[in-house]
């Protein structure tokens, strides 16, 4: 019931905000209400620790002869870190909202709380059926909110494309289930055939924007910093949890090294673009690609705890950075301490990140270590960037509240390195963390001196590289050719002579079928 309590707190608070907006638009304590709800939810997630593992089962789907699984939610050592990260993100987004230009905005806050509630349900999903249901809910919620936020035909087209890409990811997970059923086993998070495990990886990658490498949304710059950040990170978390749930035996395949190489390249690409991007919010997709790739890599090396570690670092580290919109010397220094959580050094959040239950070819380290170093360098660079507003320009009470949001994210990041789940208090593969940290220091020192790493001010936002343009054009042309063929066939069947054509086809199919059956 504790799971239900947390989710209900979030949803009821969101509903109350919407009702208040409608009934009493000038109600002054609306922010307090939002923060109060988020705080209660945050505290309640800590209370889960008292009774872990927690299970919450929805009424069973019937008839039972058809449905083997029903929606079930499980809070355990793997899902709890994600849950606390998400609630922390929501609370931090609301606390830092005081320093934003659009304050107060109860609609955005209601959206943040709703998305967090859905994200919590996604990370707690105990079987693929539950996960696809929650994924669909998140996708529809994201679609609606984005369509309300952007205007103009082109940005909205991008929203639709993003929605369809995510649904394709959802479809791949469904296909994993179908493929598993065809093999004689029902897909679940305890045992899954190898083929299904790889499909699950692809599904998570597609929904994260890692495989294939997605393009940055220029529309995202139109979204507000708080809501946009929560939207992106909740979506990412809901995909990443799948990686932690893939059974170890299911990722052992001859294809695994090839996938690992692909993921390593994606991580390098993400890190490279992240370090070169001058604007933090616009670079957000590269953070997701880079950190998401490290998460997938951990899953491919049969390390679910490592996958959770990178996933939480993505949310907490990225959240602190993306929510930060006010420049202040001490806050910048605090942000820089987040590097510890991302470093994979012993007792840090990501200490378990490079552990592995399978042997890793040494060449992969040559790709993954620079990728991690690039991500860390980018983090440092974005922490030091000049912010939109100055701290001194904020009202007194905002000067008190705003830093709490940022500090909270960093505190939880440190705390997760020390306890509360199975990946905490570990030395991990310390030498990789050390090498990556040293490389980061070197890169951070070199970056201002090396033109190649200096952020370029123009052109980088160009949404597609040449080869991607070519690929999209090719696909579009193929679609048009198929459309032309379909139109031709339709015209034949629907024309005046269509009945005769139809009968001819009928005879043809009947004879084909008869041949097959005989």
């Amino acid at each position: 019931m504790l799971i239900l309590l947390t989710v209900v707190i979030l949803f009821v608070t969101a509903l109350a905000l919407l009702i208040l907006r409608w009934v009493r638009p000038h109600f002054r304590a609306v922010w307090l209400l939002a923060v109060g709800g988020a705080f209660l939810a945050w505290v309640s997630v800590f209370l889960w620790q008292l009774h872990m593992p927690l299970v919450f089962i929805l009424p069973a789907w019937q008839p039972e002869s058809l449905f083997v699984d029903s929606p079930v939610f499980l809070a355990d050592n793997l899902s709890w870190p994600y849950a606390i990260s998400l609630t922390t993100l929501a609370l931090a987004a609301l606390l830092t909202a005081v320093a934003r230009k659009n304050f107060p905005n109860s609609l955005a806050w209601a959206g943040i709380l709703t998305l967090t509630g859905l994200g919590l349900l996604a990370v707690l999903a105990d079987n693929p059926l539950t996960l696809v249901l929650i994924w669909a809910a998140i996708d529809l919620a994201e679609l609606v909110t984005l369509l309300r936020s952007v205007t103009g035909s082109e940005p909205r087209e991008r929203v639709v494309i993003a929605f369809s890409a995510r649904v394709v990811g959802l479809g791949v997970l469904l296909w994993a289930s179908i493929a598993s059923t065809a093999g004689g086993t029902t897909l679940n998070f305890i045992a899954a055939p190898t083929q299904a495990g790889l499909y699950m990886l692809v599904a998570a990658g597609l929904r994260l924007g890692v495989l294939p490498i997605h393009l940055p949304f220029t529309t995202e710059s139109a979204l507000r910093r708080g809501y946009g950040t929560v939207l992106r990170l909740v979506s990412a978390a809901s995909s990443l949890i799948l990686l932690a749930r893939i059974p170890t035996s299911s990722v052992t395949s001859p294809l695994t090294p090839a996938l690992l190489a692909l993921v390593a390249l994606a991580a390098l690409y993400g890190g490279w673009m992240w370090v070169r991007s001058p604007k933090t919010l616009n670079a957000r997709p590269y953070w997701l690609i880079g950190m998401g790739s490290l998460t997938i890599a951990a899953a491919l090396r049969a390390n679910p705890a490592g996958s959770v570690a990178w996933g939480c670092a993505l949310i907490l580290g990225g959240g602190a950075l993306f929510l930060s919109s006010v420049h202040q010397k001490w806050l910048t220094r605090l942000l820089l301490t987040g590097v510890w959580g991302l470093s994979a050094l012993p007792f840090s959040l990501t200490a378990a990140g490079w552990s592995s239950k399978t042997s890793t070819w040494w060449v992969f380290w040559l790709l993954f270590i620079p990728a991690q170093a690039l991500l860390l360098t980018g983090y440092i660079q974005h922490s030091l960037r000049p912010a939109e507003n100055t701290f001194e320009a904020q009202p007194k009470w905002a000067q008190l509240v705003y830093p709490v949001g940022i500090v909270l994210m960093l505190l939880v990041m440190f705390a997760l390195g020390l306890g509360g789940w199975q990946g905490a208090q570990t030395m991990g593969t310390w030498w990789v963390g050390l090498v990556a940290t040293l490389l980061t220091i070197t890169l951070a020192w070199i970056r201002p001196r090396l033109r190649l790493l200096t952020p370029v001010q123009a052109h980088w936002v160009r949404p597609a590289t040449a080869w991607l343009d070519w690929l999209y054009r090719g696909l579009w042309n193929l679609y048009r050719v198929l459309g032309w063929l379909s139109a031709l066939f339709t015209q034949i069947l629907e024309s005046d002579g269509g009945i005769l054509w139809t009968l001819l086809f009928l005879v043809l199919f009947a004879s084909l079928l008869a041949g097959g059956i005989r």
Partner: protein
Amino acid sequence: MSAPIIWILLPLGLSLLVWLPRRGHITAMLGGLSALALSGAAWLIPVDTALRIGPWSLKIAASVQILGRRILISPADQPMLTMIYGLAALWFFGAHAAGLARRLVPLGMAITALLVGSLAVEPFLYAALLIEMAVLLAIPLLSPPNQKPGRGVVRFLIYQTLGMPFILFSGWLLAGVEASPGDLALAVQSATLLGLGFAFLLAIFPLYTWIPLLTEESSPYAVGFILWILPTITLLFGTGFLDRYSWLRESPQMLSILRSAGLLMITTGGLWAAFQRHLGRMMGYAAITGVGFALLALSLEPEYGLAAFFLLIIPRAIGLAIWALSLSVLTMHGESLRFRTMLGKMQAYPVASTGIILAHLSATGLPLLAGFPAFFVIWEGLARQSIGAAIWLGLGLAGLFTGAVRTLAVLVMSSENTPWEWRETWLQDTLIGLGVIVLFMYGLFPQWLQPLLVNLPAAFEHLGQ
């Protein structure tokens, strides 16, 4: 008093009665309430069992003889009647919002009664005649008297009429098969004719060309109603055949044909939908894939398949009703349903556009929406038989989803600074809104209608066991 009088003759009489009011909303309300009452009666009143009401004792007989033919509605058929009239009520209540109440409610009631009659008549030979009468009644519904019938209506009539002789012939031959079960040639001939008859009635590929044509030229709501009731009753009628004849039921060839036909419907319907540029045609192709899913369900193991088949009926009907009503809202305002005129219309018709998109997504089996539970179990059942067939099914769904994405893109792509409007009426908003809520509820809790669905297989003595 007998059951056929209550559920066949009474609605036929009611169809005349609901024609009398001049106001559409009264017709819709009367029709909806009548159908609901018939549905409730089928749920509550036992057939063939003495019912004591105070000092009186009442027994509703299961059958009635008309011109030497028997019309039988057994207690096992009651859940099916509950479902059929309940869903018909849904369509009738929405008819006024679609601007079609005075045509759809009387004709729809009569069509429903005739089709229920086709399920109940014995020998089944006469069912073909009742179906044909229902088809003829559908013509004024699809093509108003002051309008020249289009190609779609004509083709609909031709194909449905062509189906009748095949059913009649097969009925005649099947009587021979029953007499001499060892005559293989006769069995093959009768099965072939039966298959052809059902191919015409169910609009199996490539006989479904009338569906997209009809969706282009007739009222979407009227077409939606026909696309719901005709295939549903025909499928129930066909299931009755499978139940009655063990040689048909147990024949691996029959299951293979059902599977191939279902896959053809889903794959071609889905792929064609991916390239459509007309919202009405899109609905037509989705309806085609819906029939394909029903055929696939029947091709699975009997108990599993039948349960999946019944699980499919209600979400399909609700999805089609929402879709058709939403499209009707657009056509009532004089909008063409072609893509080029639909650009950015979500700003003007937010509720109708939402209805179209969600109904379409439900038809593609998007999780959380009503279509998902049934589609998923059918897909799983198919995968157990053949992974290749499951891939084809996935291809069809991908095509249908592509169509949904294109529809979504067209409806939302408005130019900068287009203001939001609200051109739907409150009744349209309420009905579509309620429908959307049901789509979500059924997608999340498919067990809610289980009390009704659990007894449906009992209507089929052998398959339902």
